[in-house]
């Protein structure tokens, strides 16, 4: 298919700018590589932290044994009533299973575990209440767990609810902190990328001042003058993003062995994840966006000031 001449010319101009600027980066290989390395590391660090947090979340979600809540029932309930309550608890959203422990069973278990048969035999009556042990769904958030516990407490025949959730809250808080920290680092290092690209482009503009003047002199539009600098910024971002992706994959490769060993000590089959396709594309996209932004800022600030003499 033959495109209209104006569209073809547009493509040619962009292709020319893209290729010329890439060639320009190759001509100044040493300085281009250093700039790319700075951008790559600045992108790899926050991406690495985010990946670490993701992996930690995955690792702790895979852990065997989800949190449990123990509901102590009123001692006056008979066995049938206790069963009804257990069924009622099991029907709650977020509870995967319940175990009903009668006072007799609890006493037998306690006698066996504690070795105080004689002491316990002295008691006139069984002091233990009936208990329903509920398995909470794994990966439940702190707020959801709270809601569930209030729902349990609201059941009339339930005297008291104990839940093993302090560590859950701590883990949750830690994850939130790590997430927020990674976000902050990403913000600062993203700003670094913008500044590095912006400064590189500023120097580039300064070095090519006479070329810009002559181009404007013979009828180059602002868009034409701007184009090579924006493409240069885009290339820096793309190359830096690629470098960051490579660094991340290498790090995951290096950490797979030791982390699997650690996980196996905890009885887990956890394997660390790499950035994956979507992660890599996000990294490249962020690189391009930040590179373009840096170039755009530099071009906006410095190009307008150059007018032909």
């Amino acid at each position, binding site marked *: 298919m033959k495109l209209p001449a104006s569209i073809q010319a547009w493509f040619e*101009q962009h292709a020319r700018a893209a290729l010329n600027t890439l060639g320009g980066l190759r001509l100044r290989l040493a300085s281009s590589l250093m700039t790319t390395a700075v951008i790559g590391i600045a992108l790899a660090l926050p991406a690495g932290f985010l990946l670490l947090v993701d992996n930690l979340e995955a690792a702790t979600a895979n852990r065997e044994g989800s949190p449990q809540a123990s509901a102590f029932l009123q001692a006056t309930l008979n066995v049938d009533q206790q069963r009804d309550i257990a069924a009622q608890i099991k029907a709650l959203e977020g509870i995967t299973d319940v175990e009903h422990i009668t006072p007799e069973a609890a006493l037998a278990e306690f006698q066996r575990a504690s070795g105080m048969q004689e002491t316990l035999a002295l008691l006139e009556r069984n002091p233990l209440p009936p208990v329903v042990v509920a398995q909470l769904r794994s990966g439940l958030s702190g707020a959801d767990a709270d809601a569930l516990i209030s729902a349990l407490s609201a059941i009339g025949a339930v005297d008291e609810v104990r839940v093993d959730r302090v560590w859950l809250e701590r883990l949750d808080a830690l994850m939130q902190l790590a997430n927020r920290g990674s976000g902050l680092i990403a913000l600062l290092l993203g700003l670094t990328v913008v500044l590095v690209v912006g400064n590189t482009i500023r120097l580039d503009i300064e070095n090519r001042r006479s070329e810009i003047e002559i181009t404007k002199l*013979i*009828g180059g*539009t602002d868009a*034409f003058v701007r184009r090579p600098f924006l493409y240069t910024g885009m290339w820096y971002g793309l190359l830096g993003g690629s470098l960051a992706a490579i660094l991340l994959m290498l790090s995951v490769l290096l950490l797979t062995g030791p982390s699997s060993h650690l996980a196996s000590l905890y009885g887990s089959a956890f394997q660390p994840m790499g950035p994956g396709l979507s992660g890599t594309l996000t990294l490249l996209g962020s690189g391009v966006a930040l590179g373009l932004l840096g170039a755009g800022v530099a071009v906006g600030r410095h190009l307008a000031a150059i007018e032909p003499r």
Partner: protein
Amino acid sequence: MIRFDSVSKRYPGGNEALRGLDLHIERGEMVFITGASGAGKSTFLRMIPLLERPSQGSVMIDGVNLLRLRRSRVPFLRRRVGMIFQDHRLLHDRSVFDNVALPLVIAGRSHADVGRRVRAALDKVGLLHKEKASPVTLSGGEQQRVGIARAVVTRPPVILADEPTGNLDPALSEEIMALFEQFNQVGVTTVIASHDHALIERLGHRRIHLQDGRVA
């Protein structure tokens, strides 16, 4: 084609380059602008592609009032005015070919079209064999001819030259002027600022003498 109506130009600091200049150049004319340095020749030429803006008065180019020209349209005005400088204003890190090709690349011409037109323009100024050379390896006269090829490669309706023979010996100056006459013969409005009175006298085109920023 080019009409100045009581145009004045006052620079910051009070220096007045033009004082109520009235001037009209017809389409297809060849005109020499003469006058002592400081008479306003350069300022006059630089107003045509809007390298300077008048402080007062109006400039019409090809029926367009430059006062009313939007900033975004200025590049398109400049594409229609081929300008030649005494100091050539070439890009020294590009080949002769690339220098001459620049206006076509800016205008978005196709690759094949660029090659054809650049070679035609270089052939016209007699530098076809130097297309791969770097401008710094060329003599002053050759660099001037590269500048001319760059100015005419888009076939603009107007050519302006500011002291194009300023640094050249008489024989080379004559060659350059002959080139301008050839462009003029195919209908290009040609305006040349020069103080080479002997040569101008011999060529016998219209002369406009500027003195103190107005036509003497």
